[in-house]
Structures are given as C-alpha cells and as structure tokens.
C-alpha cells in the first residue's frame, strides 16, 4: 500500500534519526526491518494520520510485507520513499498553521472557551503539529471526543486538498 511519511529537514527519521534513502530520479531504496511488532518497523501515515505527525518534509512511501494498522499510524516491515510531496513547503506549513489557529479562535469564541485564546497565538512559532492539536483540543472541550475527531478530519481534508493528495 502507499502511505505518507514525514521526515526531518535532513531526511532522517523524526524519532530514530535513521537516514532514509531519498528518491532521486526514481524511488529510494527499499528499507526492511526486523519483524518485531512493538519495537521496530517502518511507521507511516494514512491520509487521516497526517495532522498528528505534521513535520518538516513530507514523502509518499510505498509499503510492503506485513502492514499493521494502528489508531494513528501504520507499521510495515518494508518500505521505500517514492517521491517528495513538494507542495508541503514552508509556505504551506505556515498557511496550515494559520488555518488551525483561526479555527481555534473561532471555536474558542463560539463555545465561550476564552481561556484558550491566550494559548493560540503564542503557539504559532511551534508550527502545524501544535496548532492542529490545539484546535482539536478546543473542539473536544466544546463537543467531546467526536468533535475532536471531526476537527482532525477537517484538518486532513484541508491538507489533502492543498497538497493534491488522493
């Protein structure tokens, strides 16, 4: 299956700092891991997972072998980066962050959750992942867990649309 993966600016894994073979003219080399369910494996995002893992650089990744689906990610035993999603650049990151912040303000005011206002703007420098979380948390305070997931779904739709993803 195909999925997505965020990496650091230098092409290394966010948590493992593993240096991924990057796509050039074609896909990057295959990377395989030992089949330990909890410990290792290649982590990737389905579309709906993107807001949780928003990072610096985004790639499309092809996964093979055993693929296990979790709540907010999939884990596979083999993967290779197909292409960089160029549309996810600093400008779009900033626009998305702004979108989440505006949603956060809107929901905070609508639901009388003014105390969140002091948190929103100062969070901007920390970027898309944090603002996505803030917006979803405000939604949750206003409308419970369903509202949280609904807000995350809105974020996914926004991203899929702007990034030109399936």
């Amino acid at each position, binding site marked *: 299956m195909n999925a997505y993966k965020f990496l650091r600016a230098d092409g290394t894994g966010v948590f493992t700092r593993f240096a991924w073979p990057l796509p050039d003219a074609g896909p990057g080399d295959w990377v395989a891991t030992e089949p330990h369910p*909890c410990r290792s494996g290649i982590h990737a995002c389905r579309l709906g997972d993107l807001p949780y893992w928003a990072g610096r650089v985004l790639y499309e990744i092809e996964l093979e072998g055993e693929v296990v689906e979790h709540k907010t*990610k999939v884990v596979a035993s083999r993967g290779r980066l197909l292409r960089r999603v160029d549309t996810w650049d600093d400008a779009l990151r900033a626009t998305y962050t702004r979108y989440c912040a505006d949603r956060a303000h809107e929901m905070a005011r609508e639901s009388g959750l003014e105390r969140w206002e002091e948190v929103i703007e100062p969070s901007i420098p920390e970027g898309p992942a944090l603002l996505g979380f803030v917006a979803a948390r405000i939604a949750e305070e206003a409308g419970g867990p369903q509202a949280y997931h609904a807000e995350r779904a809105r974020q996914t739709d926004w991203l899929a649309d702007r990034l030109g993803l399936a």
Partner: protein
Amino acid sequence: MAEHEHISCQEVVELVSDYLDQTLPADEATLFEQHINFCDGCDWYLDQMRTTVATVGRVTEEEVPEETRDKLLTAFREWKRS
C-alpha cells in the same frame, strides 16, 4: 468514535526513561511520540535525558583499593600455578 487520548508534558517526563529503553507498550509509545512531535519543550527534555544518560556512561567509577588489588593478584598467581 474512539475516545481521544493524549498525554501532557507532566506525564511525558514520567515516561521518558522507559521510552529510551524501549519498554513502553506500543500504544503509549505512540502517544509519547505524537506529543514529542508537537511539543518543543518535551523534545528538548527527551534530548536532555539522552544527554544525561550518555554523560553518566562516561563517569569513571571508584578505583580498586590497593590492598584488594594485591590480594587478588596473589590469588591469581596461585591459581595460575595450580
């Protein structure tokens, strides 16, 4: 719809040691990583803990007292001969 879970920074700092040693259960490790992904403060804390453990690893420990060393060398030479 599944209950939404997340952990706070205060909870993260209690999990850092287990995360470094890879003894967190898979679901908790995911929540941990999700948090680290958006929270600079905890990302820096995790790095601080890694640095701490690495620095501890460089500490030189207490030396063997000379008397002990002598006794043990004597015992070693006897063992060699036997």
